[in-house]
């Protein structure tokens, strides 16, 4: 996350040691977006894996009773 946001928000020509207002605003937004995307992806993956689990369980039960 640090690398991605640094690449997006801080241009490589440094004029000042402090973070300017534009850069801080950009970093704020970058971190918020990164974490939100991460959370949504995690939820989606959990959903997918639950579906897989259901499928496997049904297959097992089907194989068990057969």
């Amino acid at each position, binding site marked *: *996350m*640090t690398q991605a946001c640094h690449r997006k*928000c801080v*241009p490589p020509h440094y*004029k000042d040691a402090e973070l*300017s*207002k*534009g*850069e*801080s*605003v*950009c970093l704020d*937004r970058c*971190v*918020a977006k*990164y*974490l939100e995307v*991460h*959370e949504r*992806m*995690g*939820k989606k*993956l*959990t959903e997918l*894996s*639950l579906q*897989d*689990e259901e499928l*496997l*369980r049904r297959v*097992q039960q089907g*194989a*068990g*009773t057969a």
Partner: protein
Amino acid sequence: RRARGWCPRPVMVAVPPSPSAPGGPEPPPPLQYSMLLQHLVGEQRRPRAWDPGALGGIPSPPKSEEQKMVERAMESCAFKAALACVGGFVLGGAFGVFTAGIDTNVGFDPKDPYRTPTAKEVLKDMGQRGISYAKNFAIVGAMFSCTECVVESYRGKSDWKNSVISGCITGGAIGFRAGLKAGVIGCGGFAAFSAAIDYYLR
């Protein structure tokens, strides 16, 4: 916003499910993949305190709440505009007094054009001009600083275009009171002026 201290890429563990139950009523154990996901990003994740020093920077003591609040106030647009207003006032006052000194048309009496003006008249004129210039400079400075801060917050970048855009807005707003053409000229002139100052300062 939640803080995370762990590696941003979850480890995808593909573990095969345990051997199927022998047809009995007991449910199969949950997949390790989904358990891992639940612990990492799902319902059962543990909240962790985030130490910024752990991300590889130079270790520094964490900032207290008051320090953060003060820093946030000092970086805000309102504070910057107020600072520019005060600075503009002082600069304008000095400039006005100075130009009053070199612009000698005080106390001109048509009946006696060679009369030297009294000290009271001179001081009064200097004060008036100083105040008038100071107010103008303060307003212009505050407007420019405020628009520049707002534009920079909106764009999320800090480069030369911020001062050009805010110069155009300020110059246009000032000149617009005298008509549309004056507004356009003011916009272009002020934008060019602030671009030149920016170029010189960077």
